[in-house]
């Protein structure tokens, strides 16, 4: 075993010692470090510079006590190190394949689930890479992009990368390396929340928002049911989501707040953006989303809660679930905000 490989392993082991155990991403930090260290080896003469990402990851691990800042720091460090290695490495097919495998592992394998499907997606990403006449940074980035946005569940969706590979084989695009590096960096920036990036990209803006002050309600209304609520002082919105409503389309009526209709589009099914459900869901993202982050990595998703403005000066409101809803559907009143 060569000295660089041994030292990379030593650094990854040190990350194991330093990483907090707060999130799956923290627990996967040694793997992240190991992958970056191995990619650094591919950067040849720039190895020493790229591998400095490891002490930086360690520093980030001890410096930020709040989860979001710490994970974003991991993302920024990983993105810059990955993109820099990709840009400077003398790419041949083997090296480019290593970048694709490492990238897909970072984006889709934390935490590891559905191994067979994931292996198929990985094969598809490699097919895209090999469809290019010559391996390039853009080829790697495109393979990662398609792999990320391939749902994988149901299995038939895993054909998407192979379709893209076929198109690439015909078109053979040539794009400057810097574009590829930038694209790869933008994807890997969000690897701690890659599931949100893949299934609800616009909701990424919710991540840095501080948690708003809420007054919990936690009532689920069956079709036709209604409830009257006293509006707590200084609360301006009602946080609402739906349950068992992922097949409903935009604009379909869910219920009412007094006379104001609540439709799919104002809110969505609570679990519609989960890894296993996202593809089959017909719900659009809520117009004014108020969901919370659930899980990390490719499992990460944001629930379908939406924020609906309360009538000005209202002391009491009556929320009614539409009587025409399917009997399993529930209108969930989560909280006042």
């Amino acid at each position, binding site marked *: 075993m060569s000295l660089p490989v041994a030292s990379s392993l030593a650094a990854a082991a040190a990350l194991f010692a330093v990483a907090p155990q707060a999130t799956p991403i923290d627990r996967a930090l040694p793997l992240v470090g190991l992958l970056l260290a191995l990619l650094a080896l591919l950067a040849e003469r720039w190895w020493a510079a790229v591998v400095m990402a490891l002490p930086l990851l360690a520093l980030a691990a001890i410096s930020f006590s709040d989860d979001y800042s710490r994970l*974003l720091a991991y993302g920024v460090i990983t993105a810059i190190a990955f993109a820099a290695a990709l840009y400077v490495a003398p790419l041949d097919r083997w090296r480019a394949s290593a970048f694709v495998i490492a990238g897909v592992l970072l984006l889709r394998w934390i935490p590891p689930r559905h191994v067979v499907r994931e292996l198929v997606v990985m094969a598809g990403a490699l097919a895209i890479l090999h469809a290019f006449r010559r391996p390039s940074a853009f080829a790697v980035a495109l393979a990662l992009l398609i792999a990320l946005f391939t749902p994988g569940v149901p299995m038939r969706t895993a054909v998407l990368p192979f379709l893209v590979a076929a198109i690439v084989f015909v078109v053979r695009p040539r794009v400057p390396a*810097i574009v590829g590096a930038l694209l790869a960096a933008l994807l890997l920036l969000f690897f701690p929340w890659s599931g949100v990036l893949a299934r609800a990209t616009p909701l990424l803006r919710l991540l840095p928002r501080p948690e708003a002050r809420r007054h919990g309600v936690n009532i689920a209304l069956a079709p036709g049911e209604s409830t009257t609520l006293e509006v707590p002082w200084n609360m301006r919105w009602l946080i609402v989501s739906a349950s068992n409503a992922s097949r409903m389309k935009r604009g379909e009526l869910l219920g009412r707040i007094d006379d104001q209709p609540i439709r799919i589009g104002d809110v969505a099914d609570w679990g519609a953006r989960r890894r296993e459900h996202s593809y089959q869901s017909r719900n659009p993202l809520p117009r004014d989303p108020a969901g919370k982050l659930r899980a990390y990595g490719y499992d990460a998703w944001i629930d379908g809660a939406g924020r609906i403005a309360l009538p000005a000066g209202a002391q009491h409101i009556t929320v009614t679930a539409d009587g025409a809803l399917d009997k399993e559907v529930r209108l969930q009143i989560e909280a006042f905000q």
Partner: protein
Amino acid sequence: MIAALIFLLLPLVVFRGRLLLRWYGFELASYGFAFVVRRQLTIDPYFAVVLFFTLKLAAFALVLANAKEVKWSANRAALIAALIYALLVPAMLRTSIDGDEPYYLLATESLIHDRDLDLANQYRDLAHSQTGRTDLGPQLGDPIGPHGERPSRHEPFLALLLIPGYLLGGLRGAIATVVLFGVLLVRSTVRMLEDEGIDDGTIRAVFPFFAFAPPVLFYAARIWPEVPGAFFFVEALRGVRQRRPKRWLPALLGLVLLKLRFLLVGAPLAAMAFRRKRMLLIVVAIPAAIVFFISGSVTNVHHWRELLPYAPKNYLAGLCGLLVDGAAGIAFQAPFYLLGIAALFRWRRTPEGFRLGMIAAALYILYLLPRSEWHGGWSPPLRYIVFLMPVLALGAAAMWERLSAGVVALLSLWTIGLVAHGVAFPWRLFHIANGESEMGEWLSMHTHVDYSRFFPSFIRINEAAWIGVAVLLVLLFVRLRSEFVAPLATIAVAALAFAATRPPTHVEFEDAHVEHLGGELYPPEYTVARFSYRGGWLLREGEALAVNARRGSWTMQIRAPQGAAIDVGGRGYSLRPTGEEYVKLRVEVPREGRVVVRVVAGGVILDRMDRD
């Protein structure tokens, strides 16, 4: 916007051909990446912007050092420095000028408006001063004239040099004058490196570490005599090496006129340059006469007694402090210059200019080391040795070939951190010298764990100080292979995190890890030469603080002028009046973890607590 414009201009100065196009491709990509990251940030947006441009500058320096399609000369280096320093002026002026700066500016204003150096009327009318400070008064030890005049203790040459700039642009004009000296310093240093036979590639690699890194960067846009002094010193060295008295004689005079302490550098250099020793008198007598004319004393506010030897331990503390102190040492505040220190151990193979510079500065360093303000006092770090940095850079350049890429990467990362932090938060460059460092404080404040104990301090000597010296000695003599740098750095961080989980056996109550639930710093932050006091935390009745401590017996160093009653972790202790003396109080910490110290009656100053 201005930063973006300047970063568009930078490559035009040195890059050409395809490299220029590729660089602009990178420019676009970096802004694209930053645009996305910006929306996700929760940290201070200003710091994020500064960090972004610092990283871009580092990338620029990396390409400059390694690319082939580069146009390079000392003038181009100066132009690059001018562009970057132009950005530095508004960044450094985010807060009012500080330390000695306003006094130099007041002297300039006095010279312009009153044509004298008496600042008494300036102190009375601070509202009309460009200093932006209304809290100024005569400094401790300022001379008093026969008719009650209050000239500043600082030599007036810098104030004189600032006049044209001040007349053109007020405070900003004055700072621009120092920037101009900074640009000239960069140009002269690059020329010196060329003269001493350093190849172009190495100069391009070393140049950013000198021009855009601490301490030169933090003094290049501040009204201190350090950067002009460094310029005069380099010019004097070059003049001596080229045997051109017309160059070195005025440069040396300028150096000594800026600060009388530079006489300890100028005199040895002149002694080495003059064939007729009596000519040495020119360098000594002219500044002394000018100082006598102004202050009424040949030594200004200094005294001949300061030249007498101090206790040996003071020399050791000063030397080790300048090398490894976490807040004020080269290893932590300007690690690139450790290479210059390493060059000392390869003396015969170093360029002659380096040897000449170091010998000339030896006497000055010898007199600096034992002084209590070796760390610079209320100023950005390494103040007293800024003038020596071009020489150390020359030594570093001579060592560059021997350096592994891993070490360069580590130095670069550390330097990027220092630059981003110092530019974004210029007020943090001024430290109260209480034995903590910025990094230790930051980590401690966020975690309430005493991280400061892991950073060497020779201001308040701790265990890490001697470990730091040992590590430095190893690093100076062992050539660190690239393969070991990143793992060692990662393991060091991991070890730091692991060690931090153990509560300390020694607590300084003014430190950042202590949760202060009331009370105030003692003596107050802006006390002149606060570092020479025994600092602590002042608590009055009902106020408290909390620390992480181990279970068992501890000895507290405490002062209660009128007597007091305190509660430590639920146990009460009473103190008789101690007057101005600190006394030892044995206390029992009932369990490991957070311990609250509350004042039940009276008032106390808590200095420290040691486990028995």
